[in-house]
């Protein structure tokens, strides 16, 4: 075959590919626009405890035998826990179940107006300890491993530091903020000279989900539009579209926050950095991270724009655990725990670390 005819074949093939994708884009684009919300959180589970904003799930086992120590995942208060269980094959919960873990998850619903007075005390001295007790009862085991994500990690840290007698076998913190003065843009926007958190909380009671979501989106203002352009270009690619839709749904379902909780986290954590300086007092107990002695794993993302690495970095040095490890992975705040990056990088590392310590 001559060079000229090979080149013609190549061009023909390329043109054909472009036409096929353009047709697919139009057909699937219409489906995309009219399709209902994608189903999420499909891994079978039971709701074993619910109280106001709190839900505790127990997932059905997917292996013939499980590790002795059950695992309790604590979700951040700003978002739904289905990020741990986006879709079959894209689910951290499903992965852990198949690896032989007995998985429990703390999820949050939007707080109701009468829950506007919830504080860190409620989350760390009531909700989490109660859930740990429920996990003990359900599993028949005394020990429990806790995995906290983002603010869920901070709540888990406060719980662990104020319950030194807790049956905590292992503690895993995923992108958990500790030094709140390294929060980047958040520190500028919530500058106490200009941000009147009292007025905000006193007026609204419950901080609306839109306000919370705006705070996230403003950090990467082009992300949403760029994502939409990318999905249009990839419309022919079913896997890409499926993944985009579940992430998009998760991003759109940000939760409102209890006003008092917002006031307390703003003043004590963001402004006064009391978790970092060990001056935080919750439920009459001083929160000293040095009092945490359970084996500790902290997983941080190199390109996390919401909780920058510098913000989580001091954690390992601050805890009193002797068995402790930090894993720094490529990726961002969400891609660390869900999506192809997590499947390849984070989940296997978590399984290896936790499996060794769950017998």
């Amino acid at each position, binding site marked *: 075959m001559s060079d000229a005819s090979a080149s013609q074949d190549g061009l023909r093939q390329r043109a054909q590919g472009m036409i096929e994708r353009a047709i697919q884009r139009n057909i699937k684009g219409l489906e995309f626009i009219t399709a209902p919300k994608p189903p999420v959180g499909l891994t079978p589970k039971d709701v074993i405890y619910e109280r106001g904003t709190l839900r505790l799930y127990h997932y059905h086992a997917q292996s013939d*035998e499980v590790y002795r120590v059950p695992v309790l995942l604590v979700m951040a208060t700003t978002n739904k826990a289905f990020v741990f269980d986006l879709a079959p094959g894209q689910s951290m919960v499903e992965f852990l179940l198949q690896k032989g873990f*007995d998985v429990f998850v703390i999820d949050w619903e939007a707080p109701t107006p009468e829950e506007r007075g919830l504080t860190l005390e409620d989350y760390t001295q009531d909700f989490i300890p109660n859930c740990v007790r429920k996990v*003990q009862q359900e*599993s028949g085991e*005394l020990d429990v491993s806790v995995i906290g994500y983002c603010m869920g990690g901070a709540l888990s840290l406060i719980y662990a530091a104020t319950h030194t007698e807790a049956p905590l076998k292992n503690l895993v913190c995923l992108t958990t903020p500790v030094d709140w003065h390294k929060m980047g843009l958040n520190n500028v926007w919530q500058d106490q000279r*200009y941000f009147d958190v009292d007025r905000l909380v006193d*007026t609204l009671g419950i901080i609306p989900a839109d306000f919370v979501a705006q705070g996230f989106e403003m950090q990467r203002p*082009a992300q949403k539009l760029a994502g939409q352009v990318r999905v249009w270009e990839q419309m022919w690619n079913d896997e890409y579209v499926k993944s985009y839709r579940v992430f998009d749904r998760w991003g759109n379902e940000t939760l409102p926050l209890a006003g008092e909780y917002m006031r307390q986290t703003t003043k004590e954590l963001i402004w006064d950095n009391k978790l970092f300086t060990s001056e935080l007092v919750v439920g009459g107990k001083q929160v000293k991270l040095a009092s945490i002695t359970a084996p500790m794993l902290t997983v941080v993302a190199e390109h996390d724009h919401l909780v920058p690495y510098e913000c989580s970095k001091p954690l390992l040095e601050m805890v009193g655990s002797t068995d402790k490890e930090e894993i720094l992975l490529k990726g961002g705040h969400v891609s660390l725990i869900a999506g192809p990056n997590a499947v390849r990088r984070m989940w296997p590392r978590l399984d290896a670390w936790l499996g060794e310590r769950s017998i």
Partner: protein
Amino acid sequence: MSKESPPDPAANFREMVTKWERGFDSLANQVMGTEGYSRSMNQMQDLQLGMQSMFKEFMTQNLTNANMPTRDDLVRLAESVGDLDRRMARIESLLEAMVPSNAAVGSGPRKGPPRTKKPPSAKAKGSKDGKK
């Protein structure tokens, strides 16, 4: 002869989108990361909250004049129901706390597969020991 996948003509477009996104975000972050931006953003927010507060007062007054329950009245009602719920939960927790947590241990898992799984490293060690 191996069949090569057709070249992706959209690769340049994707790269362009990524570059635009990074450039725009970086520029926006520079602008929004200033003290001036923070001040004006928060001033705008205060203004909105002030208007919302005024509107709320106006509505409350009108509802009271019309002898109708206000939002605060309904929240108070929900709160008392919530209080009852929390009291029940506290009683439940206290009852559970009275049973020693060790009581649950030893009785084995209430349902599901046996809790006997070992990590791969322990299995490998076990089989090595077995061979000796």
